């Protein structure tokens, strides 16, 4: 399944400038693992050594926080858009 991963500009330095990356996998976790394998410098910035998400890096699947969809276990399908956004608070 091909999905699109949108990265914040602070991470583009680790992808040769690319802000948008194609990825494959049945779940978000698999898609992230796919990207991590192809961009080793990006890998530790997307998830920890055990492949789990960091508390301060949020993933949005088609604009919805994936923590409401099972986190990295959330199923993904062709054409889905995943956006990576560092956690920033406000008020």
């Amino acid at each position, binding site marked *: 399944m091909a999905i699109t991963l949108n990265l*914040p*500009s*602070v*991470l583009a*330095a680790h992808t040769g400038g690319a802000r948008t990356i194609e990825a494959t996998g049945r779940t978000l976790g698999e898609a992230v693992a796919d990207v991590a394998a192809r961009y080793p410098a990006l890998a*530790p*910035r997307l998830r920890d050594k055990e492949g789990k998400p*960091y*508390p*301060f*890096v*949020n993933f*949005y699947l088609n*604009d919805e*926080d994936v*923590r*409401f969809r099972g986190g990295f276990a959330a199923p993904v399908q062709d054409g889905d858009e995943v*956006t990576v*956004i*560092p*956690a*920033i*608070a*406000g*008020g």
Partner: protein
Amino acid sequence: MPATIASPPLTARPLRCRGCGTERAAAPTAICEECLGPLDPVYEPGRPLPDREIIAGRAPSLWRYKEWLPFDGDAVWSLDTGFTPLVDAPALARRFGVARVWVKNDTVSHPSLSFKDRVVAAAINAAAAFGLDTIGCASTGNLANAVAAHAARAGLKAWIFIPDELEAAKVIGTSVYGARLVRVRGTYDDVNRLCAQVADHFGWGIANVNLRSYYGEGSKTVAYEIAEQLGWRLPTAVVAPMAGGSLLSKLRKGFGEFLEARLVSGDLPRLYGAQAAGCAPIVHLVERGGDAIEPEVPKTICRSLAIGNPADGAFAARAMRETGGWAAAVTDAELVEGIRLLAEDTGVFAETAGGVTTAGALALARAGRFAPQDEVVLCITGHGLKTVEAVQGAVPEAPVIAPRLREVTTLVEEERTWPSR
């Protein structure tokens, strides 16, 4: 850039990652390139610090603590923000069963009647230091009001994003300043995510996104003012409202910095946080333990605290646990009662977040969290006229009479039969 540049020119302090410690030059960015952790300003450790007398001789604004704010040189905008009253509240002290209670009254903050003036005063000077001509924010209302007001005074363009369902005063109290106000269908968390992308895409100075490292430091001035206004000493407990959770960790940092500078002595106050029960992810984290926030979908009339995914929540929980404090959640009915109680006991009319803080403090008192010798400060962060909808129907309706003395006499006689409150 401002018309007149202060001498020496205003520059922003460099940044360091709270997660991995990586340092970088000052920039409108709040995220570490190495680990995506949050960036904090770095202060020169050996810089000359003022003593009590020097501070007391400065203008009554938050800039009297400029050595602890993230700039070199003098601020150029929002020079009159801060130094709000600390109000003695003996009736609340009796109610809570403690020695003293004070209200840190940011309902009269200048210019936009909320605590957010403090953080925006810092953010807008960061914008000046970086030469940005457009600022903005993602907001639940108070920050929108503050960014719009401060931008108007500084002559900057402002793009402000809020959830589509906010109180009328928060909407009009933003548009009136000429800001470009955009209402986003969704919750604050949706707006916040959008603004992270907007800041990344347009390069604007979004106060609580890419200017966040500087913006957040403005919160510390609440702690400095409390210490100075108590006669250079610390209270034993402080209760504050929590949305993103930043205020709690900045209170701790502020009190800690004044202890370190030997401007005050003793122990850090115990820090307590309050949220509305319909959106209480930080309270739940404190109760549950651990470091991972579980996001919630907000369901409360307290829109100014309705952040279901608080990025500083883990830091806030740590600040509460490590100082010996705790957290409390209150229902919407309790927060409305909290607004009335605060108004009747202290003469301070607060918005819904102030109701949460007051009702939260009452709940903590009833749960035995305070001792009789405690001296407690409540951080009341926004004016009640911003959320009158919340108390409509909860306050007594005013009778309408003809302009005749007899009708007043009747009312006075009726009142004699009312049970006293």
